[in-house]
């Protein structure tokens, strides 16, 4: 539950920072449109931290666990966004002709 909250938050963050076409909408988001999902994402992260602190005896332990979880969530988010982009973008001519380069 806590992990999913964090994962959702980080995915939201990822979607708003994506440099080219936004992963879901295929159009770049304007800077105002970025703010709301980002705000929600930060709130969710704060919620995750609060939940962890309440679940744990020690605030310090909870903070460490929250920081570590963020890394894993961010890695997942990057992979999810990459997969989504691959799925959304049709293969370019070059890739279809020559196969993917390493």
């Amino acid at each position, binding site marked *: 539950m806590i992990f999913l909250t964090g994962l959702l938050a980080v995915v939201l*963050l*990822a979607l708003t*920072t*994506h*440099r080219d076409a936004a992963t879901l909408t295929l159009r770049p988001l304007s800077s105002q449109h970025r703010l709301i999902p980002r705000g929600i994402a930060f709130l969710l992260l704060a919620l995750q931290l609060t939940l962890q602190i309440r679940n744990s*005896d*020690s605030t*310090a*332990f909870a903070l*460490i*666990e929250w*920081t*570590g*979880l*963020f*890394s*894993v969530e*961010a*890695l997942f*988010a*990057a*992979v999810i*966004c*990459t997969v989504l982009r691959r799925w959304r973008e049709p293969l370019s001519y070059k*890739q279809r002709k*020559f*196969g*993917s*380069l*390493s």
Partner: protein
Amino acid sequence: MKRHFRPAMTWLHDWSGIITGWLLFAIVLSGTLSVFRPEITLWMQPELTRQTVDSNQATEAAIAWLSAHASDSPGWYLDTAAPRAPFTLAFWSDKNGYTQRPLDPVTGSPDALRDTRGGEFFYRFHFELQLPYPWGRLLAGIAAMALLLTLITGIVAHRRFFADFFTFRPGKGQRSWLDAHNLLGVVALPFHLMIAFTGAVTLASLFFPWSATALYKNDLTRAAHDLNPAAIERPRSGTAAPLTPIAPVLRTAQQHFGKTGIAQIAVVNPGDRAAVITMTAGNEDSIGITSHTISFDGPTGAILAEHIERRPAIMTYNVLYGLHVARFAPGVTRWLYFVSGLMLTALIGTGLRLWTISRARRASHFGTILVARLNAGFIAGTPVAFASYFLVSRVLPAGLADRAGLEIRCVFLIWGALLVFAALRPARKAWPEILTLAAAACAAVALFSAPWHRAVDAAGAIIAILLAASFTFAARRSSLKNRII
């Protein structure tokens, strides 16, 4: 040197990275494995089938065995049994020198358990590099500072830090490697910075002792006493006196420590009138190591000194040390340390690859070719060597004398052989070959974890399978025709 700050720092990042990269790769990977060192010891001793163990009973049995078989040792040092580690890890000196072995929790004897260093091999290698004191530790300390420098210059070198936070574009050659390198660095940056700095802190008293030297001059005993006033040191008296029964002493310590329990016990000069028993509390509720210590008089069991650490500067040092060794880490956090350690290992690996790829375009001369080949040897070969440690342990007969030393020698033989192989083979061919070997070795570890009864065997098998899959994927990618190197 480059005129502007960012390019200069990029240059520094590249060079400090490549010079210390291979050493750091080995240090970080062995450190990552050390997160689970008692579990690894457990894996390597299928004889230890007991799941739950009474810590105090195990300690009593251990002390009884040591009193009978190691009475001449100047000291006994015990890591007590815990849910993670249902055995007592004891360190003592016999006629052959110092030895460290797990002791059975019921009999207190190491004889029924096969002679193996277990997870302690990775732990020791991680900061001693199998070199004589103090050279290994000095090198590891320098490497830690180099890692810190490489991380900081890497942050400076990285443009668009936040804009590219989640960017990963696979299938684009150097671009993809750089994306992966940046991603691994950025998402776990707090961990990387923390582990590098705290790693240096744990060894700082060896390579950076000047503030203590300046204030204490040569009086290092005084400094040690000031650091932990409860760690009493007394010289041998020469008069024999039996050690007090340990059970009441354990109960007293337990009362003082509360739920944290007793983590470490040191018995100095056992059997002598001046014997001292020092007990250190666990890390149930504190990150910092040695936060609570009690020393008892050996023959009588009376409390000599007790110390709870409250001094801010010393607490800071203890917490930094504690963050690195992570004794405090409960379940999820421990796995997070492990995963983050793997990310740091991959960060170093991708960085080493990038160094070669970015120079592949220019005229390749001897240095670049050698680095490219040794990259394959180190990055793909080190996992093979570490995996072989587990495999050799299952293959060697349990009753063999000096098994522990033999296991470790096999690791270095395999490692050396792989490095020689990689140096002589074109990198293009060596990468898929050694990566396939790594995949096979990890799969074998999963297989050798049979019959997967204990949690440690099952968990080890799952991790080994995941790693085998990753290496298989990497091996196939590295053998594609259009690869750069």
